[in-house]
C-alpha cells in the first residue's frame, strides 16, 4: 500500500505536535510520552512525524526509529477506521478465542496486524482486557463484545 503524508491536511496536527514537544521537553525522558501522543494524534508515526520529533527533542532520527519500531503500540502505517481487537489472553484463549480470530480472518480476508484494502478494518490480537468474565472477548474501537461464539462474528462486523 502506498500513501503520502499530506502536509497541508495535517498542518494543525503538526502545530499541536510541536506544542506537545515543547511541553514534554521540560521533563526528563520525553521521548516515550511524545511518541505516545503523536501516535494518538496522527494514528501512526510516519517518517515525517518522526523527523519533527527528532528535531524538536534533539534526538537522532535513527534512535527514534529504533524506539518506534520496538513497541507494538506504535505503528508506521495508518490503521483502519475500525480496529478489531481479539483478546488472546490466556483466559480467552482457553475459551476459544482462536476460533474467533480465524473467523474474522476468513470474513475480512485479513491477517493479524493487517488492514483491509479499503482501510476500514484493522485486526489485532490483544492481551487480557480485564473482562475475562466475558471471555472470549473482542473489541471494535471502543465497543466490547463478550461471551462470543464464532458464528456471531459476521453479524458484528456488519454493524460497522
Amino acid at each position, binding site marked *: 500500500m502506498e500513501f503520502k503524508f499530506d502536509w497541508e491536511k495535517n498542518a494543525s496536527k503538526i502545530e499541536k505536535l510541536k506544542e506537545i514537544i515543547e511541553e514534554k521537553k521540560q521533563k526528563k525522558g520525553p521521548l516515550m510520552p511524545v511518541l505516545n501522543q503523536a501516535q494518538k494524534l496522527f494514528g501512526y508515526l510516519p517518517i515525517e512525524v518522526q523527523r519533527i520529533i527528532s528535531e524538536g527533542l534533539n*534526538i537522532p532520527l535513527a534512535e527514534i526509529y529504533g524506539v518506534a519500531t*520496538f*513497541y507494538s503500540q506504535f505503528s508506521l502505517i495508518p490503521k483502519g477506521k475500525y480496529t478489531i481487537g481479539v483478546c488472546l*489472553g490466556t483466559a480467552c484463549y482457553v475459551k476459544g478465542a482462536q476460533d474467533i480470530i480465524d473467523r474474522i480472518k476468513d470474513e475480512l480476508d485479513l491477517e493479524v496486524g493487517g488492514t483491509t484494502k479499503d482501510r476500514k478494518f484493522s485486526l489485532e490480537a490483544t492481551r487480557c482486557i480485564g473482562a*475475562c468474565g*466475558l*471471555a472470549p472477548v473482542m473489541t471494535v474501537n471502543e465497543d466490547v463484545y463478550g461471551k462470543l461464539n464464532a458464528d456471531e462474528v459476521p453479524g458484528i462486523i456488519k454493524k460497522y
Partner: protein
Amino acid sequence: MELYRSHVLICRGTGCTSSKSDDMEVKLNELIKEKELDKEVKVVRTGCFGLCEAGPIIVVYPEGAFYSHVKLEDIDEIVEEHLLKGRIVDRLLYKGEEEEKIKSVNEVTFYKKQKRVALKNCGVIDPEDINEYIAYDGYMALGKVLTEMEPKDVINVIKDSGLRGRGGGGFPSGLKWDFTSKAEGDQKYVLCNADEGDPGAFMDRSILEGDPHAVVEAMAIAGYAVGANQGYVYIRAEYPIAVERLQLAIDHAREKGLLGENIFGTDFNFDMEIRLGAGAFVCGEETALIASIEGERGMPRNKPPFPANSGLWQKPTLINNVETYANVNQIILNGADWFKDIGTEKSPGTKVFALGGKINNTGLVEIPMGTPLKEVIYEIGGGIPNGKKFKAVQTGGPSGGCIPADLIDTPITYDSLTEIGSMMGSGGMIVMDEETCMVDIARFFLDFTVEESCGKCPPCRIGTKRMLEILERITSGNGEAEDIDKLERLAENIKSSALCGLGQTAPNPVLSTLKYFRDEYEAHVNEKTCPAGTCKDLVSYSIDPEACKGCTLCAKACPVDAISGERKEAHVIDQDKCIKCGACEEKCPFGAIINK
C-alpha cells in the same frame, strides 16, 4: 457530609463497564433525579467487585442487596421498586450454586473464604473521590509515617512484616527498601510497576481502577522511607480507565497537599508522574522498564548493578509492583504482626488472583497465602462449568507452569508453587478442563514469548523460536520421535543462558506440561491424535449413525454446508469440506457428533 438513606454501588470495573454499566450509571442518576430521590439516595461508582462473571453488578445498601447480570432495562425496576418502594427486586438477586437467591453480599460463598487487604477498598469506595478514600482511613498511614516515624522505622516495619514482592519474583520488599535507602546518591526515585504483562491477568489494573489512592499513598511512604522525592508509575497504555483514575488521584492528592511540598507540614516533598508503556511485555522487567522511561527501547540490562544502586538515570531506584504497594498502607496502620498473622510464615499476607478460564466464578479473588489451590477452584471459584473434568490450573503466566489435578491440594505460597514447577507469578490463575490440550497451551505461551522476546540475547531470540517450531510441528501432526527430547534439551539450555527473566522462564510452560502431561505429547507425536480434541489438524468430525436422529440441527449450524442427509435419517459429514469448526458438535442434542 450529607446523610443518605441508601447507597447504590455500581461496578465500573473494566468487566462490568464492558457490559454497559457506564450507561446504567447515567440512567440510575437520571431516574433518581426524576423521582426526586437525589437527596436520599447516593449512587457510588466503584471498582471491580471481584465476581465479574456475574456482572454487571449493583449493590444496594443498607440491605446489601446483591444484584447481578443487571441489564439497562432493569434499572427502572430497581429505582421504582427498591429505591422508591423499598422492595428488593428478587428476580435480579445473585444466585449462588445453591440456586437460592442470596440477598446480601455477606452471604455470597465467593467472598466468604476471601481476605481483603490489597483490595480492601475495591468495590467499596468511589475511586474518583478522594474524600471517600480519606473516610476509609486513607492517607492516615502517610500522616503517621511523616509525623511519628523515622525513615528507618518505616523500613523496619516493612521488613518485619515479611512482605514479599507481588510482581512475581517474591523478593522481600523491606530488604529492597533498605538497599535503596542505604545507596549513595543525592537524587533517588520510587517506581511503580503497573505494566502487568501476564496475558491473562488484571489484578493490578483492578487495584488502580478501584483504589488508585492506595498506590499514591504507598509510593509517598516509600519515598519518605528511601529518601526519594519523585515517583513514576509505569502503566500499560492499554489500560485507559486505570490511567484516567490514577491521574485524577494524583491531581486530587496534589490539590489537598498530600503530594507536593511540605506534606503534612513536614519538610518532606514528594511528587509523582505517570509514564505510559507502549505494548512490550518485556518492559515489565524492571531494568527494561527503566530503559523505557528513559526513552529507549525497552531492553533488559545486565544485573548487577541492581536498580537499588543504579536505576533510573543511574540513580538509586526503588521499584515495586502495584499490589505490593497496595499492602503497604495497611501494614503501617495495623502493624507488622497483624500482617504476619495472615498467610504463612514465609509467605505472609494475601495474594490477589485473576481467576479465569474454565471456571464458574471468573473474577478477582484475594486469599490468604497458604490457601490450597483446591479451595480457590472449588469453593471460591465454584468448580468447572458444564460438568466437565478439571485437568490443570496454570499460574505464573508465560513464566509459570500447569499444575495437574493430583497436586491440587498444594497450598499457595511462593515456595510450594516453585517446587512443583510453576510459580506464584503476578496472579494469573487459569483453570483448564479436559477439553484443553496441554501441548497447545504450551504452544500458546511459547508463541507469546517468541513475539515478546526483545531479541537482545540469542538463547531467547533463537532458542524459543526453535521450541515454538517444534511445538507447531507436534500440534499439526508432523511431530517426530526425537522432538520431545529436543524440546527438553533446548528448554534446559535457554533456562541457563538467557539474559533476563523472560528468556530464563520461557521454557517453564513446556517443561511443566512435559512433566505432568507427557502422555499427551506422546499421543500427538506417536499416534497423531489430540486427546483433548482441540488440535484442528489432528481431529476429524464424523457422525455416529446410530445416535443421529436426523434432526438437521447440525447441518443448519455448519458454516460451510459440509453436512448432508435427509430429515429423520442419519447425516454425514463431507471431510473435504469440513473446516473442523466444531459448531455441529455444540448443536447436536443427541451427542451424535464424534470428534477424534
